């Protein structure tokens, strides 16, 4: 009862209070309501996206599924290029807590980045800044131990080339975003490249993935590329080439090996080369795959084609005698000479001794169009179809613009420019009985039928001449290989002057192209050494020995049966066993 009276008292006293007090309270309450309402409107209308996104961030997340770029392998499955998993470190500067400065300093030390550089990135006002790309997985694990807020890892891949400079020119390399920049990496970018997948997931409080909401796009791993290259032959070719270029103090050198049955490129090397694993300091000049992107005047290695077309059209026979005893020949004002005059030569001897006069005489028997057609059909002045980026097709001028002297010089390989691959491919004509095999850098394995350019008879006649050229009294005697019959041709061409007017007197391109075993050819190898500077410059003394060593190893690797007897010191085990039995 007492309580009730007090209440009554209060109510009674309220009645006499001034009216403004209740109005004031009402206004204060209303004001509060307006503030709350406007805040609600503000959050709902203007900040909705941000808040929803923030809420979703707590449980839903889009994760990237990284898949590696396809690897590149040689014909036996040995790895030539592989994408190794690495982590890229990125920060969300908005989330970085500057009270963690001690940890950040350790981070800068571990990454080997100056403190100032780390600070600059961390203080940026973006939401995504790379701190360092491509660190090793073990270093990334150490850094994860630091527990730095706002620091994240992204799975990426680093392209690694285990064979280093050996196959660098074939493979090329990729840039930091895993895009092919040169070579096969560029040519096959579309199939090698992988597509990262994306999916939306739901996470629980501990960051575990509990549900897959949707797959935004599924990951597409890059496809592996199997090349026709044989890593062993490639190594052998590069090693011997590098040795020769250094020994002859040459500017550069190139070598290419083709399988005559399948048209596959077994090896293709250049020196100087570069290490594609260290992309920062790559010399522009060393990147060039000289086999394909450089053109040169082939010199004498082109002579067999002139002779082939002369045989084909029946103008000469292998034993036709030519008047070459003068050792020189005048066409208009120009003079063609031989290094040594060897009297009158037969057509076979012209090839064997590499006589310029002889081959020019043969060329002058032919209409320009016939010679041009032969060279054109042998693939000079046209693309090789390898699809290699930057490949040059060379220059074979239209026969209608030839002057007589040009026809003569072209017959021994001047006034025409080709690349080394074209030269090697053209020699498949003589190695396969007249077919021009289509070449490829991808594993093919099955023999292919080439395009017939010359008859089987002509091809075997040239084959015999090319075998003579490698005999002890031929120009290419140093290309011989123990146990195998070899056919081939040397070439020594004067280099053009830098201004393209005329030829340099003492700068040469030494080359050798040949194939073996001559009884059933399996491999064509072409070697070219640019400006040998250590005294020797003839193709027979600079390029032929490289050919010989690479061919010997290649035939052994391919398990080719010998086709030439030679003295051997081992006694057949079966023979001695039989003796004991008897």
């Amino acid at each position, binding site marked *: 009862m007492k309580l009730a009276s007090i209440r009554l008292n209060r109510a009674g006293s309220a009645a006499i209070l001034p009216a403004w007090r209740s109005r004031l309270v009402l206004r204060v309450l209303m004001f509060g309501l307006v503030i709350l309402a406007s805040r609600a409107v503000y959050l709902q209308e203007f900040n909705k996206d941000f808040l929803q996104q923030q809420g979703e961030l707590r449980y839903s997340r889009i994760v990237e599924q990284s898949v590696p770029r396809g690897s590149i392998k040689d014909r036996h499955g040995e790895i030539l290029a*592989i994408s190794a998993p690495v982590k890229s470190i990125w920060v969300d500067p908005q989330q970085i807590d500057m009270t963690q400065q001690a940890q950040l300093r350790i981070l800068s030390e571990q990454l080997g980045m100056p403190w100032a550089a780390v600070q600059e990135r961390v203080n940026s006002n973006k939401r995504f800044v790379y701190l360092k790309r491509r660190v090793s997985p073990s270093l990334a694990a150490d850094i994860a131990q630091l527990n730095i807020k706002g620091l994240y890892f992204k799975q990426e891949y680093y392209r690694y080339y*285990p064979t280093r400079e050996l196959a660098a020119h074939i493979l090329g390399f990729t840039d930091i975003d895993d895009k092919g920049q040169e070579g096969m990496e560029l040519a096959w970018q579309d199939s090698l490249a992988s597509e990262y997948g994306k999916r939306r997931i739901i996470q629980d409080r501990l960051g575990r993935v*509990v549900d897959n909401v949707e797959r935004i796009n599924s990951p597409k791993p890059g496809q592996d590329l199997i090349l026709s290259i044989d890593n062993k032959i490639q*190594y052998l070719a590069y090693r011997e080439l590098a040795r020769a270029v250094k020994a002859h103090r040459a500017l550069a050198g190139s070598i290419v090996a083709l399988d005559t049955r399948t048209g596959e490129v077994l090896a293709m090397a250049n020196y100087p080369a570069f290490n594609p694993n260290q992309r920062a300091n790559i010399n522009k000049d060393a990147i060039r795959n000289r086999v394909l992107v450089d053109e040169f005047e082939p010199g004498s290695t082109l002579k067999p084609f002139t002779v082939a077309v002369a045989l084909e059209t029946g103008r000469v026979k292998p034993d036709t005698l030519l008047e070459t005893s003068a050792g020189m020949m005048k066409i208009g004002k120009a003079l063609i000479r031989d290094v040594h005059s060897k009297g009158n030569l037969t057509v076979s001897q012209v090839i064997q001794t590499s006589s310029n006069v002889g081959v020019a005489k043969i060329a002058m028997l032919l209409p320009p169009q016939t010679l041009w057609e032969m060279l054109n059909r042998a693939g000079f002045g046209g693309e090789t179809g390898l699809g290699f980026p930057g490949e040059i097709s060379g220059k074979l001028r239209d026969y209608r613009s030839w002057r007589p002297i040009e026809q003569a010089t072209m017959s021994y390989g001047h006034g025409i420019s080709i690349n080394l691959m074209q030269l090697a491919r053209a020699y498949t004509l003589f190695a396969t009985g007249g077919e021009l095999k289509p070449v490829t850098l991808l594993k093919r394995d099955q023999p292919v039928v080439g395009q017939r350019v010359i008859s089987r008879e002509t091809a075997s006649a040239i084959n015999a001449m090319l075998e003579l050229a490698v005999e002890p009294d031929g120009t290419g005697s140093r290309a011989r290989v*123990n146990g195998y019959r070899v056919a081939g041709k040397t070439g020594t061409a004067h280099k053009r002057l830098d201004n393209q007017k005329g030829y340099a007197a003492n700068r040469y391109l030494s080359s050798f192209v040949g194939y073996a075993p001559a009884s059933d050819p399996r491999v064509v190898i072409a070697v070219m050494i640019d400006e040998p500077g250590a005294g020797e410059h003839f193709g027979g003394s600079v390029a032929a020995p490289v050919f010989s060593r690479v061919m010997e190893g290649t035939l052994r690797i391919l398990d080719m049966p010998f086709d030439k007897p*030679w003295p051997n010191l*081992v006694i*057949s085990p*079966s023979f001695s066993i039989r003796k004991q039995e008897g």
Partner: protein
Amino acid sequence: MTLFLILVISGLGIVTARHEARKLFMAQEKEQALAKQFATERDQLLLEQSTLAMHARVENIARTQLKMVMPAATNVLVIQPGKIRAR
């Protein structure tokens, strides 16, 4: 009343099913992470293998440490199965 009971039961059913699904999903996720880890390891081992098996390195070891030499062509004998039988 029965309807309400069915509702409750089916509701609980959904909850359990959902929970089970998430548990299974997590297990799957874990296995996938493991698979990925193994794939990474495999890549690294492949890389290591190819680095160790570099021809230049193998040749160097064979020649210098193991003192191996290539047999000269004169020391090679070709055995032709057909010929042995014929003799």
